[in-house]
């Protein structure tokens, strides 16, 4: 299991990265492994507001659906629509397959660094 040190993580298993003033969000390696084969993703639209601790979309596997929980409050400024055609990228490259980018961030959940998150996952496993 991979926990890149340069990222921050939420307890609902999203990762975030700051990039040119916007917050990039995806799901962790632990999350994709727990979900199994991701078959579809429901994405928000550019311009939608997202709220820290609330769902901004969901991911489907064959027999389950899980909310994607936003670690930040802000405005969605980009959506990775490639995932609509190739949801398997979330399984194959969870840290490359970003999901949304958020700007005008006004609030952020308490986040974990890689070490703390890895320890947290160990308790969840």
């Amino acid at each position, binding site marked *: 299991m991979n926990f890149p040190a340069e990222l921050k993580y939420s307890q609902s298993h999203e990762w975030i990265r700051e990039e040119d003033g916007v917050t990039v969000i995806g799901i962790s390696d632990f999350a994709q492994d727990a979900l199994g084969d991701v*078959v*579809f993703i*429901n994405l928000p639209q550019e311009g939608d507001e997202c709220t820290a601790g609330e769902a901004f979309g969901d991911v489907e*596997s*064959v*027999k*389950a*659906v899980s909310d994607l929980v936003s670690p930040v409050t802000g405005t969605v400024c980009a959506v990775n629509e490639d995932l609509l055609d190739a949801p398997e990228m979330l399984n194959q490259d969870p840290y490359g397959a970003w999901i949304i980018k958020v700007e005008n961030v006004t609030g952020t959940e308490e986040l974990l660094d890689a070490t703390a998150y890895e320890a947290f996952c160990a308790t969840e496993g």
Partner: protein
Amino acid sequence: MSYVPSTGEQRQEMLRAIGMQDFRDLYRDVPREMYLDRPLDIPEGMSELEVSRAVSAMAARNTVFPTVLRGAGAYDHYTPSIVKTVPNKEEFLTAYTPYQAEMSQGVLQSIFEYQTMICELTGMDVSNASMYDGAEAAAEAAAMCRDRKRRVTLVSAAAHPDTINTIRTYCFGTGDEMRVVPMKDGKTDMEALREMLTADVASFYVQQPNFFGQLEDADAIGALVHAAGAMYVMGCNPIALGIMKTPFDCGADVAVGEGQPLGMPIAFGGPYLGYMATTTKHMRKLPGRIVGETVDHDGNRAYVLSLQAREQHIRREKASSNICSNQALCALTASVYMAAMGPDGIAEVARQSMAKAHYLCRGLTAIDGVDLVYTGEFFHEFVTTLPRTDEVLSALEKAGILGGLPIEGGVLWCATEKATKAEMDRAIAIVKEVLAK
């Protein structure tokens, strides 16, 4: 008589095997005060012969009219013999929903074929495995179109009253608003529609042909609806689609309709079939079962219930619909009907229904006092004035003819390919005779 095969002796043996004295022991968790210690107040059971007589006697208390000139949502088309026999095969009849793909390929493939035929008929990209009926499909389509910002559903006043009322009921459920767009000359009032298409409108539903048989200007409506950023739901008669412009070509986002004309008997209102199809863009919002093609582990073509993460058993309270069972056997009936008719046959049924309705209309409106109420183009239904309606209809019924349906402002007539020239001539003559008195 309860269809229990084990003999009395075997039942005792089984009770002993599980350490019980009698049946009462099996219900030891049922509190004494609610245990029903009296026989049910219903008649004693009957032999098959007696039941057959009793139920047949009920059927005999109905009057079946040899000639039906009434539609209004239930259409008396000819049902080919093969269409009756196939769904009566015991495996198709008694199987459950095909959860276990390995032992249900026959059902799954038949649904996949049905989905394809509905796509062909409507021009849409994706069909589900069926809904309960046309009215419920329309209500679910309206629900499918709502999002966080757009919650209001518009419905044409010229749609079937049961459809309007069903949509209203589903809106009442979720606490959303339905607004009825008034009609003008028997069709959707375009000016009123334009004004009512506000920014909170999620979708507009129009029926084609509408409840009064009139052909709506479906393209122009679609353009209006889309210009306002709303979704366009069309409820189309599937027989009419044999010759009529598809909902896809009219710009519909969702096509629904009452599938009964595709081989189901009128049967006092059911079971019928709701069909529902949409574009690829909205596929994942479609409610209900969808069968998809895949391969098994040896690479053989196989069919499965697919895209299940949309459904209630996975999404629970977040599912947009609670539907699970649909009308699979009716969908099978419709498939056999469409395959038996083929593209030419279904067009011929449509052409003949239209020709006969126009013949009937000409004959009736030639009578003094009988006039067309709505003068637009129509398919196989039309509304006329009819003086002394009760008297006329009663005279027709005595001659074995179920005349048109009395509605506000006139009588709604229908003819299908089953109506012969001779039957219609007789009907016209009776109307003339009564009104001449």
